[in-house]
């Protein structure tokens, strides 16, 4: 199977999956109790919109979704726009189209996510390899203890500690906002710990498995320096399972981390996603959910392509999905 055939098959599958995701999300939204207008009315006292304001808004977006239009037609209208990347205006932010909200929030969330994941890789790979090479030593046990601690610490708690140290005590970093590199440091640090811990664990166990392979002994028997044998012969093969976790991990961070973005007041996607779900803001929820699905699928596609780069056997088989399905699938890490 040629690469192009493989790729187009994958794209067709992505489109089908996205359609399914949109149907399921829309159905769930319809089944959820309450609707946008009711929720706005109930929270009217606390909201910036008055009761009358809400009525105005309902009329304002009636141009696209009238109140009397049945749900299935609302869905079709939304999807008709969606295929041309036009999700229409948000209920809650009627001045903005959903795709514009995504275009604003996504680069911010993605920047934090990519930096955080890269940083955690840079830390996790050497730590995992170090622990694996010194298996069962005090160094290994110590590292793994710290790693377990890292997994147990939620990122919003880390964030609070960071604010206490860097803003309130040292006064070197701003605690909120999004304007330049000084605003990135703490959110990235808060996000890095969890993925680092998870990845280091994977690297260690994968490396331990690879180090037992006979080709590692064979490379040592050829006179290879230990460090070269580890980096050239063992590490590459150990990275294959790591890539599997990396894709979904990156996707979930890129589409916004609700707590960390809220804590540091970062105008990323996570905030909008959470608001959309809470206020039953159909276009915003559908738009962000579909976007999330798209990012996740793209990441998985990239992961599969990287497999092919790392392992020529997969490249030769012309497709990864069949091979991957036969592998033990690692658990997805919640963001």
């Amino acid at each position, binding site marked *: 199977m040629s690469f192009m055939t493989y790729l187009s098959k994958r794209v067709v599958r992505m489109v089908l999956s996205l359609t399914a995701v949109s149907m399921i999300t829309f159905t769930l939204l319809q089944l959820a109790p309450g609707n946008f207008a009711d929720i706005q009315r109930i929270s009217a006292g606390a909201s910036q919109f008055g009761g009358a304001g809400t009525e105005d808004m309902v009329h304002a977006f009636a141009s696209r979704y009238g109140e009397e239009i049945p749900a299935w037609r609302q869905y079709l209208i939304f999807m008709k726009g969606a295929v041309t990347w036009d999700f229409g205006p948000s209920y809650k932010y009627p001045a903005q189209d959903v795709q514009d909200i995504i275009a604003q929030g996504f680069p911010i969330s993605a920047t934090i996510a990519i930096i955080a994941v890269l940083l955690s890789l840079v830390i996790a790979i050497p730590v995992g390899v170090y622990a694996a090479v010194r298996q069962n030593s005090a160094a290994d046990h110590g590292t793994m203890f710290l790693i377990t601690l890292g997994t147990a610490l939620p990122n919003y708690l880390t964030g609070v500690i960071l604010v206490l140290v860097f803003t309130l005590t040292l006064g070197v970093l701003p605690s909120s906002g999004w304007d330049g590199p000084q605003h990135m440091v703490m959110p990235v640090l808060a996000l890095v710990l969890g993925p680092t811990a998870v990845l280091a664990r994977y690297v260690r166990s994968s490396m331990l498995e690879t180090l037992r*392979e006979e*080709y590692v002994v064979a490379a040592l*028997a*050829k*006179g290879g320096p230990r460090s070269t044998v580890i980096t050239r012969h063992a590490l590459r093969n150990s990275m294959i399972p790591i890539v599997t976790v990396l894709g979904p991990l990156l996707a979930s961070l890129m589409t916004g981390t609700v707590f960390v973005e809220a804590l540091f007041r970062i105008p990323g996607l996570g905030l909008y996603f959470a608001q959309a779900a809470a206020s039953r803001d159909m276009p915003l929820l559908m738009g962000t959910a579909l976007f999330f699905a798209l990012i996740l699928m793209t990441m998985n596609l990239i992961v599969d392509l990287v497999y092919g780069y790392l392992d020529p056997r997969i490249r030769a088989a012309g497709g990864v999905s069949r091979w991957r399905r036969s592998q033990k699938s690692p658990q997805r890490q919640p963001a």
Partner: protein
Amino acid sequence: MSSASSLEVEDLRTEFVLRDRVLRVVDDVSFTVEPGQALAIVGESGSGKSVAMRSVMRLLPKTGRVAGGQARLGGTDLLGLSERQMRKVRGRDIGMVFQNAMEALNPTLTLERQLTEHLLWHGICDRAEAKRRAVETLGDVGIPEPEKRIRTYPFQLSGGMRQRAMIAMAMVTQPSVLIADEPTTAVDVTVQRQLLDLLARLKARGTGVIMITHDLGVARYFCDDAIVMYAGRVVEHSPIRPLLAHPAHPYTSGLFSSTLEVGARQRALRPIPGSPPDLAHRPPGCAFHPRCDRAEERCGQEDQPLLPWSGNGSDLVPGTVAETGRPTDERTDDRADERTGRREVACWKAVQHG
């Protein structure tokens, strides 16, 4: 390149240190491999054959340690070298061929990478020359279109080709000694023959070969000498042909009568009863005595040292290869070999009965 050094292993002892005890896995093993000679190491699984070889290469797992003895290559004791010096010996002076090329070749690196990297590590030549040598060696081992094949990955080759590529990988540095750990076990018979011919050519060029094998046919075809190991010790040491014709140690004859050989007259297979001892509970005296049908009280009391042996053993062990109608001219060969080779056996009964 030192293409004419012999490997002399003397009183090699290897131990595995477990949580609560120490297991001696290789016990006072000695042998010599001269340039252009091949030594077979024969024995059941777990008899310490592979561990002995890993000890010489100093590639034991973390729990293993060499507790004594020497392994001299061209006069230098490998066991006394620093890790850095030892690294220069591995792959350059001693090459290693593994049982299963599918596992011993890295699946994600091309043959070129795997056949040239040690030439570069050892500073033998530059990259271009390394590639030229690798292509040449691949051609030597009978891989067609070596210039093209060198760019492929191990999984793209057939089983036989892979095994040959692995031998090429060990050969490319022209080591003085080649250790082959059951190189033909994982391949079918026709390929086996080709691989043996390949190793025979290597031997003819002056490489000393150590072959770990279960297969007596292979040992007979290819090797000059043999040691038979049982529970970490050498129980018999002999030139190969007299050994096959007249095994002296009851374990050796048991091993022979439990294997089939093509071309030999039909005979009943007689398995050795029981299984090899757990090294943590090594039987006292001769470790083989609980399984030996000729054991006497003395066998369980005295350690059996290797002693010179000059008998023909046929009265002691009836029904072995010697009596299965091997052509007479081969028997004459056996006698010719006996003149040159010293035989040793670790069994007082065999020594007494001559």
